[in-house]
């Protein structure tokens, strides 16, 4: 076992994409954790004096405001680093919900087979029949008027509830082959309960694909959060969400291009980071794909 882990680690280290991904992700992570230390200005409080010109225009990047200010004279840099936290919290919580749903449904469907499997998989097909974003927008619009959670919670609940299907399919497929294997057969023979078989024997064997999908899912969820925020369906103002910053700055592409450049680049880097890391993990877990 130790040698297998070591081999996997070595494969990971030799995968340049994965390393770049890991580096980018840890950068964003550091930004989110160190946000209060990195930013001199409160991301929420407007500065009508030095943050805006006489005419009320955003101030361009300068020593006090390294990435300039926005429409309300708030520091774009402060909002960017605090926005990292929003993006990661939403991404992580949404993935957590999606993984919980997906893994449970996948395990049960794959192991039970028969009618249960058919029903659950048709449910997956039904959800998949709708484009992911369309369904997310619909649900977000419905949740917006309801009393479920605060603004941020509404977003990750929406994304989690919509985004579990791929996970369920992959886990079910894996379980279908695993349940025919001898060690499951033996567990059943010695009288292990279904729950024990599901969570002690099957789950550890599907953790690899789960980790890969979860990492890739982070990228998708962060991007989706930006899209929802851009459509004003994200966390309400003044929460510094990257998508919302992009939306608020879009008309300023000529007068204050930093308003869209900053969140745009941040989203780009984060999404690329998680995608590279996820693809790297897949290569590590999938020896057949590795030459």
């Amino acid at each position: 076992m130790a040698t297998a882990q070591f081999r996997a680690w070595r494969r990971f280290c030799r995968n340049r994409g994965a390393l770049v991904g890991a580096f980018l992700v840890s950068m964003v992570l550091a930004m989110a954790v160190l946000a209060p230390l990195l930013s001199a200005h409160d991301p929420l409080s407007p500065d009508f004096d030095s943050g805006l010109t006489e005419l009320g225009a955003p101030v361009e990047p300068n020593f006090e405001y390294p990435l300039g200010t926005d429409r309300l004279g708030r520091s774009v840099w402060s909002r960017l680093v605090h926005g990292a936290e929003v993006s990661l919290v939403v991404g992580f919580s949404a993935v957590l919900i999606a993984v919980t749903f997906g893994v449970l449904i996948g395990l049960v469907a794959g192991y039970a087979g028969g009618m249960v499997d058919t029903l659950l998989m048709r449910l997956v097909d039904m959800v998949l029949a709708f484009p992911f974003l369309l369904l997310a927008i619909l649900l977000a619009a419905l949740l917006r008027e309801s009393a479920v959670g605060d603004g941020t919670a509404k977003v990750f609940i929406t994304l989690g509830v919509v985004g579990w299907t791929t996970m369920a399919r992959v886990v079910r497929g894996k379980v279908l082959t695993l349940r025919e294997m001898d060690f499951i057969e033996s567990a059943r023979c010695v009288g292990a309960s279904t729950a024990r078989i599901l969570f002690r024997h099957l789950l550890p064997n599907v953790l690899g694909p789960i980790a890969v999908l979860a990492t890739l899912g982070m990228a998708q969820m962060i991007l989706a959060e930006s899209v929802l925020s851009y459509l004003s369906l994200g966390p309400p103002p003044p929460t510094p969400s990257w998508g919302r910053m992009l939306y608020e700055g879009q008309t300023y592409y000529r007068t204050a291009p930093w308003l869209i450049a900053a969140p745009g680049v941040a989203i780009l880097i984060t999404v690329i980071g998680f995608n590279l890391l996820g693809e790297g993990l897949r290569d590590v877990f999938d020896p057949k794909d590795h030459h």
Partner: protein
Amino acid sequence: MCSIPKTTTDRTWKPISSRVGFLVCVGLIWLLACRDGGRGPTLKAHGHSEPQHGGILRFSVPTGVATLDPAVGYDEIAFYAIHHVHDTLLGHGTSAAGQGSQLVPQLAESWSVSPDGTVYSFVLRPGLRYSDGRPCVSGDFKYAWERALTLPKGPFGQYFRNVVGATDLMAGKASELEGVRVFDDRHFEVRLVEPDSAFPMILAMMFTTPMSRAHVEEVGSDIRRKPLGTGPFALVRWSEGTELVFARNPYYWDRPLPYLDGMVMYTSVPRETAFLKFEAGELDTVARLSSADYLWLAERPDWQPYTEKVLFMNTVGVRMNCQRPPFDDARVRRAMNYAINKQHIVKLHNGRARIASSILPPLMFGHNSDLLPYPHHPERARQLLAEAGYPDGFAVEYFIFQDGPNEQIAQSMQVDLRRVGVDMTIRLVSFPTLITAIGKPDGSRFSFMGWSSDYPDPTNFIDTNFHSRMIADEHSNNNTFYENPRLDRMIDAAKRERDAGRRERMYRDIDQLLHHEAPWVWLFHLAMVEVKQPYVANYKPHPIWLRDFRAAWLDLAPQVLRGQR
């Protein structure tokens, strides 16, 4: 070790490279766009000293046009079109001549009022014709007014309530408008229930335009898109969702107007797109610029001479429900006025606004210029809140709809109010939802509110919004639900008063009372900024109609003018 079924992962995740490619392309386009330093005006004015005839003027609006039926259309966009097709008995003078809010006779040659102020007599101009050559006669006014009052859901009945027989007609108890008597094709009179100095203003509203009964019956329900009027232009074509094309009315009464051969009004052009089209020379004038475009324009000296800022008659504020706590206490309402920093809000409008002190805008008759706006004074606000029994503030939801810097203003207010202990959350809703929510007593307590004049008389601002008679359970016009018998008496007396000097003093007192009672947080009066091409002559935004191209002309070389489409 596990393997992942390739099909699933491939389908969902592989397009990363194409996604990166897409983002890079977007980035490059953006960089190119940023390099564009912007063009100045491409076509200069030719320098004619006399107005030139000919040419087509092009402008755009951000939405579609709901209707061209003057008895139905009741929004700014519809007004732009209706105003140019339909003239009224009285009008407001052209803005380029600096007489924008002054009442002048249009279709009426002259008019007089009886000594008791209840009978208005009109003489029409000789030889008035519609744009198809049909004669326009006194009976057409009576027909049009009866039609406007009896249309189901027609929005204009409220303005004619004071005409004898109007309420009976609207209630279906009469078949004609008793108060209008037609003597012959050019003479008629209107009798009022009680004197009303603002009545002539109502006769300048577009719904009072004459309509030909023969035409209305001919086109039937198509009247929405087939107008026939006495205005400077006639509709040639309406391609719904794209454009409305107008040609000059050859029978227009006010020769030599209009100078233009026609106009094109492009519909559903977003503000930002409109500005880009204007820069490219595809539009002749553009108004209501977004903040970003205005700021960009402000840095371009070559456009400055062609930019016009006009304060038009409106007041914007925060309306409070005066019957529900905590706003049932005037001290709380005054505290709100002290707590919110209006200077900041004007800055968010890039200086295109003036701080308000009460309901009447500065150009309005009766505006009390001695009143000073509530200063930004958080200490005073906290003190007033404590006196009213809210030392720790309260929580409130603020309703707004998405438009211009509304959301930024709300965020700025949020910060100001937090400083005095008021926890304000922002509720972004659509415009129709907002209108429904503020029109009922148990709806929104605290919301955005703006009022633009339908006609330039204080009655339009004060009676509608603050008289207790206007309180209703649904779609209440008085949506602050402010009730004050003393104010009601003052409003009724001012409306009856016929001496202009005394009337003005009465409205100044009302303005002052409303300032002090503060059913709104008085925020600002918005200015309209319009930028035009250098060759658009004799045109300025109009304080009432906003856009009025009757007297505009294009100062272009004759060959350019002829070559224009």
